[in-house]
């Protein structure tokens, strides 16, 4: 039977366990993880690796020229490029509150503002 072995380093917590994953047609075995979250991470990493992505988006009339955003949930690694090409094109209007969705349903996630942006006070 086809089996594939891969070595991973867990990114869930600072311990950084070295994990060995063996994947066959109908089974995934995980060795070396010190906790269940590590086992879960290894399975996910083999089947569908995902990451939280953070970037900045242009702001109109803000006290800062950009607002920082993150994906509401980890998105598939293969979508990262697509998301960043899209965020480069978006512009949002101030004010912006932390937690506000800047864009919805991009690769299954929303883009959430992580900085409060106030309207720029123009000096006359």
């Amino acid at each position, binding site marked *: 039977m086809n089996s594939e072995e891969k070595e991973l380093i867990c990114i869930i917590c600072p311990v950084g366990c070295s994990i060995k994953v063996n994947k066959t047609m109908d089974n995934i075995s995980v060795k070396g993880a010190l906790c269940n979250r590590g086992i879960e991470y290894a399975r996910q990493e083999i089947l569908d690796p995902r990451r939280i992505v953070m970037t900045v988006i242009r702001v109109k009339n803000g006290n800062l020229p950009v607002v920082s955003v993150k994906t509401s949930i980890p998105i598939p690694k293969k979508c990262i490029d697509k998301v960043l090409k899209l965020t480069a094109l978006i512009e949002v209007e101030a004010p912006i509150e932390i937690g506000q969705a800047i864009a919805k349903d991009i690769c299954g996630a929303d883009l959430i503002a*992580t900085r409060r942006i106030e309207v720029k006070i123009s000096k006359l």
Partner: protein
Amino acid sequence: MIEEKKEVVVIGAGPAGIAAAIRARQLGLETILIESRDVLGGIPLQCIHPGFGIHYFGEDLTGGEFIQRLIDKMHGIGVNYILNAYVHSIEIDSYIEKMVNVVTPNGVHKICTKTIIYAAGARERHLFELNIFGERPDGIYTAGEAQTIMDLYGVLPGENIVVIGSGDVGLIMARRFALEGANVRAVIEIMPYPGGLMRNIVQCLRDFNIPLYLGHAVTEIIGGRRVEAVRVAKVDEDMRPIKSTEFEIPCDTIVIAAGLTPNIDLLEKIGIAIDYRTKGPIVNELFETSIPGLFVAGNALVINDLVDYAAEQGEVAAEGAKIFVENDGIPTKSWKRIEPGRNVRFAIPHYISGERDVMLYARVQKPENDVYISIANLKIKMHNVRPAEMIRVKISTKIIAESRNTVIPVEVIPHEF
């Protein structure tokens, strides 16, 4: 000139200072918070990556989200603060009274206070501290500068990047550059192991196929008006570059991520005792320095890996200030000294009384697997220890009481011993 009287002056409105000011106000102390920038928040404002607040708020937040929560909490309980306010000097008038001289846009404030919590953070180590020679063209930034330019102001400083140093800030910036479409040519680390956490090696470098050169040093920066390349060589066991291994990496931007050092110039001027290991002040369990009533917290005390620890230290310092104000000093029967031993680079605090539970922060000198952390009779099993990961251990009064010695060694011991 404005003259004021306070019980505690907090210097620096980053996570440690804001947490200290909140706690001090909650404890009923007359508090004022002084910030030199035009915004509250300090460094987390420019940190748009997650990993903040897991201990402190029990949630994984970005730097901006973390600090905004703390700022909102501070506004909620009404802490006085001054922005654009620069602490020019501190005068020690007596055991109890100090004078903080502050330059503000509204004139000079002279604040008479019983206690000071100094939380002015750290500064980045720069090029001259790395012994890098060559030209000084445009295109050289510290990691923090690059972070500010990109993530507060939305400007990409360059297209072909070499990061010098593999501490967490350097790794996180390598990822930010890669995400924004820049080409990160290399991360160069002089030590044989990474400076940052393994998880950051994975999610910041491997995810983007960024090469990490361990045991390598940048020997020269090449360029005229703008950076054109760096010359890199392997180093020998004494960290000296091996000439025959030199090669060039073309790039237009260099990011220096050589770590942080506590920003305590102001305290050095008034003669506080300094630990050569941490480059920060020598402190007791309430983070009081060698000057009575002068407390320190956050990265000005010791370079932390987590913002949560900086905030926690701010709270401890505020509790110290409360005890000092109530008793005109910190009353203690005896101080025991914490002594870093085998594979311990430093341990904070330096003195403990055994009268209260204390959080001990330490860092190892070199990576090791399957060890015990040994503090008096307390032995804690660890799967691995790494210089990049601060060790944080609660020491109960019981552990100190059991130890008859006046010196308490902190050691990392392999299992087989």
